[in-house]
């Protein structure tokens, strides 16, 4: 089966006053139809830039330096004739930054259909109301006439998801969609994503720094660190038997509801600067299992059944 989205050896170059740097730096992964892939990493891991590159929305000082992005069999790396807004859409972290504060929500949502699909006003309105109701916005007709500031945080995010789903996209990219929300509202939105996943064929690329949020919805998880992929694995195996030392550390550093008061296992040190990334494996300065080779050479991908890991521990073992 051909993947819906194929990202191959993608590297994005940033130019800043302090110099050039690459993040992400050579990532390869795919998303299949109807699948939900979680992308996990800390700040500076390159997860959001990867999403922006796929959407063709890189900032001005960045460009795709290497690799290519295939969507539905078409090369979209150049950003010309991009399918965003038609076959691909995105939900951002803070809905207040992505909605126009001067426009009624209804106008903003209808615009998507009128512009991209040349629908008439009435048709668009009907579709918007339908989608909003499906996403749990009560009294959708009334809510259309309101401005973003009149919406609560959870409702705003629902409206954003509605906007993204209006075009019935093949791929939905969600970048930290629940991080700005309260816990009970987060749980509601996660349930909504879950429903979306089961009721439509839309593939979801779900980006988060929070392993526990991603494990609610993803079928497969990609773990990124400092611009590189550490591990790609189906959800269940990732948590039962994390392969990469970074994944192991991440999972262990989340406090859980079983062990109380014990010392948390943390990963020593700090996330490295991308301007001057460590040689060899980028995680080696913080790794508790590092070998001599880790400081000099970057590990290759090791395929283990349906999992991929980039770590010398497994390369050496010759699995």
């Amino acid at each position, binding site marked *: 089966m051909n993947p819906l989205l194929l990202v191959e050896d993608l590297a994005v170059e940033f130019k800043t006053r302090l110099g050039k740097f690459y993040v992400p730096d050579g990532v390869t992964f795919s998303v299949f139809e109807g699948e939900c892939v979680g992308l996990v990493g800390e700040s500076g891991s390159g997860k959001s830039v990867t999403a922006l590159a796929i959407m063709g929305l890189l900032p001005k000082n960045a460009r795709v330096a290497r690799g290519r992005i295939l969507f539905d069999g078409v090369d979209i790396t150049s950003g010309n004739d991009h399918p965003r807004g038609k076959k691909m859409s995105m939900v951002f972290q803070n809905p207040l930054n992505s909605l126009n504060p001067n426009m009624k929500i209804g106008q903003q949502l209808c615009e998507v259909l009128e512009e991209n699909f040349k629908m008439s006003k009435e048709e668009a309105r009907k579709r918007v109301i339908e989608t909003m109701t499906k996403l749990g916005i009560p009294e959708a007709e009334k809510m259309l006439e309101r401005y973003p500031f009149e919406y609560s945080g959870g409702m705003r995010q629902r409206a954003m998801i509605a906007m993204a789903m209006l075009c019935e996209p093949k791929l939905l990219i969600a970048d930290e969609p629940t991080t700005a929300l309260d816990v009970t509202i987060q749980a509601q939105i996660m349930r909504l994503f879950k429903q979306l996943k089961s009721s439509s064929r839309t593939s979801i690329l779900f980006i988060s720094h929070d392993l526990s949020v991603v*494990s609610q919805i993803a079928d497969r998880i990609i773990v990124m660190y400092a611009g590189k992929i550490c591990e790609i694995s189906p959800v269940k195996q990732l*948590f039962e038997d994390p392969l990469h030392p970074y994944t192991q550390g991440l999972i262990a550093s989340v*406090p*859980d509801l079983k062990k109380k008061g014990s010392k948390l296992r*943390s990963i020593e040190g*700090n996330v490295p600067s991308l301007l001057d990334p460590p040689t060899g494996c980028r995680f080696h300065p913080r790794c508790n299992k590092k070998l001599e080779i880790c400081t000099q050479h970057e590990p290759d991908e090791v395929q283990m059944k349906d999992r991929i890991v980039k770590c010398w521990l497994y390369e050496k073992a010759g699995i």
Partner: protein
Amino acid sequence: MLRVENLSKEFPVEFDVFGRPVKFLRAVQDVSFTVEENTVFSIVGESGSGKSTIARILCGIHKPTTGSIQFMGTPLKGSGHREIQMVFQDPDSSLDPRKTVLFSIEEGLRIHRIGNKEERRRLVIETLKAVGLTEDVLSKYPHQLSGGQKQRVAIARCLVLKPKLLILDEPTSALDVSVQAQILNLLMELKREFSLTYILITHDLKIVYHLSDYTMVMYLGQIMEMGQTERIIQEPMHPYTKALVAAIPAVGTDNLKDFSLKGEIPSPLNPPKGCPFKTRCDFAFEKCNERPPLTDFRGRKVRCHLYTEV
């Protein structure tokens, strides 16, 4: 150690033509609690619950509208108590970007007129070591440090004044997951070493469970439930606490698929009459239109009519 009684705080939000306030936001309503020495007391709640307002009142940023606070047996008045210090959520906004680490940490000592220049420097270095930093950060500026290091500096800034009570307002929410664990471990070590008492304010029940002894759950300015942390999280009583516990995403399983709480948090400007949670509660019945009292029930306090009947 700390006894808070009937604390309320109202903010004026609307004024008439003469500038007299006509409408108030009741941020905190009738809150009473005690914090024992050497324990960790958590205040949990979502936005609008009043948890940060309580923290600000305790360190003197806001004046309470009514109520009294006793600290170590004497009433707390005014602001700037050396023995109560606060660690804020985001070190980027709590540290002055134009001042060196040495200046920032030393500032409190200067204000309280402690020691001379050399003594202060020695104290700062001692404190830096306690929070796991070395002398070479002294002359650095915040932008040269990582997020975790900055939060360590923010903690050192409080610690250097030898406080007894530390108020931690979301101390790790601005940090990366791997660094969050480092800071939580550090806080526990410091507590043992300097026999500190913490008031921990957070929305993250996993951290609450991990660190704290007592927990107070708040919703729209009122206490919903209060008691020992372990019992509150393992067998929550109030329907709101139940929902909060059910909303904790677990690592590795999709436990949120059955989460059923409906609706949104009402605006604190216009809270529901009676029980503030009644608009979202599955168990709401007629009586919930009256405000339920905070009742003692099996060793903890609950504000819910379900538990006043029995």
